[in-house]
């Protein structure tokens, strides 16, 4: 698996693999702690931001589909473990999010600076819908209107608002030539 940063399918000369692993570990740990201790206290209409999803999308945008999928699997799985939630759901959703975000970054022109924000918005809606489907399959309550208006939309809005600052932090952590397009926008 390549850990070199890639944009629009173009492989760039990246930092040392070991250093990149340390950065991924740092980003993963930050995601887990933010998700379990900070996120529950930031709420709008009862929904909370999903820091894991935002960070997985940002990492996938900066490092590609493979790294995004593996990072999503590890972090999504660990957050489920830490919250005593059924292991596997978070991992499944985050693998999908990481892979698709990475593929998106590898295949489209990334010059528009709002890409991370749009990617996070799309990923939030997809991730939320996947979680809801998983709950439905586990025979738990999934009232459609409530889920749409009090879970999916507020969470997507919160995630989108947080996307730009989180992307800037993740970007500065991982470095690379693809500097903060969000600011340019």
């Amino acid at each position, binding site marked *: 698996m390549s850990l070199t940063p890639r944009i629009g399918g173009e492989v760039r000369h990246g930092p040392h693999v070991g250093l990149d692993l340390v950065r991924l570990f740092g980003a993963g740990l930050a995601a887990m702690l933010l998700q379990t201790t900070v996120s529950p206290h930031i709420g709008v209409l009862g929904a909370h931001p999903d820091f894991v999803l935002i960070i997985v999308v940002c990492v996938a945008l900066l490092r590609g589909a493979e790294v995004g999928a593996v990072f999503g699997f590890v972090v999504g799985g660990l957050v489920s*473990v*830490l919250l005593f939630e059924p292991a596997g759901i978070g991992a499944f959703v985050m693998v999908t999010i990481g892979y698709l975000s990475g593929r998106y970054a590898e295949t489209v022109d990334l010059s528009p600076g709002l890409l991370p924000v749009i990617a996070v918005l799309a990923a939030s809606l997809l991730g939320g819908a996947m979680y809801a489907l998983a709950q439905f399959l586990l025979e738990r309550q999934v009232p459609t209107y409530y889920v749409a208006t009090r879970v999916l939309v507020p969470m997507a809005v919160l995630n989108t608002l947080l996307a730009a600052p989180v992307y800037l932090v993740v970007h500065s952590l991982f470095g690379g030539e693809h500097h903060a397009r969000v600011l340019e926008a």
Partner: protein
Amino acid sequence: MGRRRALRRRLVAVILLLLSVALLTLYFREPSDGPVHHAQERALRLVAPLQDGTARVIKPFRDSWNWVADLFDAQSQNGDLRAEVERLRQQAARELALERENDELRGLMKVRDDPIFPRDVTLVNARVIARSPTAWYSTVTVNVGTDDGVDLYDAVVNGQGLVGRVSSLSPNAAQVTLLTDQDSYVDSSILPGGAQGLLAGSVTGDISLQYVDKSQRVERGQVVVTSGRTASIYVKDIPIGTVSEVAQQDVELYQSVSVVPYVDFHTLDLVMVVTR
């Protein structure tokens, strides 16, 4: 070269997705002391101190955020509260009279109050170090576990009333399923009157009493407590909340009773685990 790369990329994604499904299947099929649950305990043992530290560090910021949120709430609730004050003033006058009457009766009959908790229980202080931010699970993680004498299904309370029950354990942390969780069921009584019902949570965070017999008279404002019946995991008379709405339909066998909990689940910080 590009084709091989694309193939490998897809292969990685498919393998990880299959692993996730396998993990999920194993989680639900294995017993509670199976390898996945054990891995959860071990991981939590490592990360719980970090979560504890982070929770303490962010507490001032969290309190500030809550303060600002409360300020907005207070403004919008001002009108309602004025009416509430008037109602409570009248109620307080009635209660003072009742309290005096109660003291007199107690003296006459020499009836001792039942203690809320039996003598063979111990209260273990705990701090909330993490909570599920999703709507799907109303759970919190507290910083005590088997090392502190906490056991599975122990009740968790705070100064306001019943918080929930211990649903998973590690040596230094425990998951508490809150009353509002859709998997939470508490055998409860309504006082006065003693009507019995099963208090259930929901995905919306509302709680309601189910299976309350229609012949039982239930009114708004009555108090809901744990019943503490023989098979119940909760000790008797832990306060839960007050009845906010009672609905009866001819086609239903039971009446539907909505309950407002005493505990503010959004600001949970310090709790106590009732160990037996």
